[in-house]
């Protein structure tokens, strides 16, 4: 039975460090799961909006499947040459911990390399503080 979505706002639960609800107005409907999503959580399929829009959850799944297919085809996922169609997914939602490292492309696809200097939950506060004054609907003591 298909899941019922709230059409009044973005239904995606996603985030850089933590998954959280998004209350922004929806701009698109995910072509796979029919979830209403805002422009931040909507991703053009194959880099072209005309092809459709995927929500962040579905685009992650899609990307994972693509990686498996590519790994099967070439033995290992080894670089951007095989990812040309997915440049649109080159966004923070899809970065793994070792994105900035020398083995960026390999880990970008596999996402399994552990970096001891990677971001942790403790970094969330500093990220929020850096954005202070711009983050609406988060501080319950504001007026």
């Amino acid at each position, binding site marked *: 039975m298909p899941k019922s979505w709230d059409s009044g706002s973005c239904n995606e639960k996603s985030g850089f460090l933590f998954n959280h609800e998004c209350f922004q107005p929806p701009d698109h409907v995910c072509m796979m799961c029919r979830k209403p999503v805002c422009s931040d959580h909507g991703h053009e399929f194959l880099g072209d909006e005309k092809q459709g829009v995927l929500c962040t959850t579905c685009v992650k799944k899609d990307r994972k499947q693509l990686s498996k297919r590519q790994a099967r085809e070439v033995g290992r996922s080894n670089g951007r040459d095989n990812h040309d169609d997915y440049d649109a997914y080159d966004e923070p939602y899809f970065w793994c911990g070792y994105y900035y490292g020398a083995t960026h492309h390999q880990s970008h696809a596999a996402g399994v390399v552990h970096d001891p200097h990677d971001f942790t939950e403790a970094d969330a506060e500093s990220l929020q503080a850096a954005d202070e004054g711009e983050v609406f609907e988060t501080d*319950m003591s504001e007026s």
Partner: protein
Amino acid sequence: MTQRADGPLHWMLYAMGGGMGHLTRATALSRVLLQSSSSNARQCETRVTLLTNSSFAAGLEIEDELGPRAEVLRIDSSLDRHATVAEVQRVFGSGAADAVVVDTFPRGLAGELAHILPRLGCRKILVHRDLNPKYCQQYRLAEFVENYDQLIVPGEAAPFENFPNAISTQPWLVRNEDELLTPHEARFRLAVNGNRLPVAVVLGCGRLDEINQMYVWATRLADEFPTTLEVRFVVMKNPNLDVTHEKTPRNFKVIAIWPFFQAIRGANIVISGGGYNSVNEAKAAGVRFCGVPRRRLYDRQENRISSADCIQRFDELRMRVEEVVLDFRTQTKINPVSYCNGVHQAVNAILSACP
């Protein structure tokens, strides 16, 4: 929540947000809604539910102020966003209301009303005030406010004030003109003996660090004008200040009054932040005012305080108070200023638009 064809009219007032502004406006509205309905037999059953998460609400006797037909739901101010949203959802899911009045935040303080409002079959009214333009843009509030049947603009410019369903009123006040104490009564309420000296009222409101700053400024004023000024540090409820063991000047007292507005005619100058109530109450009563605009995420206090009334440092405050002291020596009797309480206009507009 569905609208009922008969039975008592139940108003849900969403007054979420920090400080005293949302809570006091909702209290002012509740009073008049409950009073207005008393002339009609059916509407005698009118009741109000006031929803707040202000940290001040816990110590205030709002029920005494509003009477038995009002229910005040206090959400713990220390709850995080998710817990607060859950509480609001629980409240909206647990009872029927015939009308919902949302103060300031069209989508709710946490954006939670974006889910709730479109599903409500009842009348929806937004108390529409000035909002940070970035907030309006980021959340497309111009589109979202279409969820409301009416926008009521309480005395200050607001971004959607020209919408066809928007009505502007005078500022909303928690007391009508005839409900204010006389200057003599008000000075008595402020524990000031006689009328020999002017009274500077410093309001302890806002955040704790702001209250502390105001307390320090109040005691400094009392020190600097030891024989020419009475200073009252007025708090809404007992503050978390350890003042009991401090030696304070003889012309200084801490007084707890809520709402302070009823005693405003006892003050010769009011010193506060730049919040909605402080500024509009002083203006309405014709009492001198000076305020420190506080930084808030949504409320732009710097736009509310006139440049003549705006202060940032103690030496600026001292100059303003010195003028008051000098004027007091030469002034003759001042007649109280008249004002119109915009909350009556608001209630008339709301009730006349009800089907």
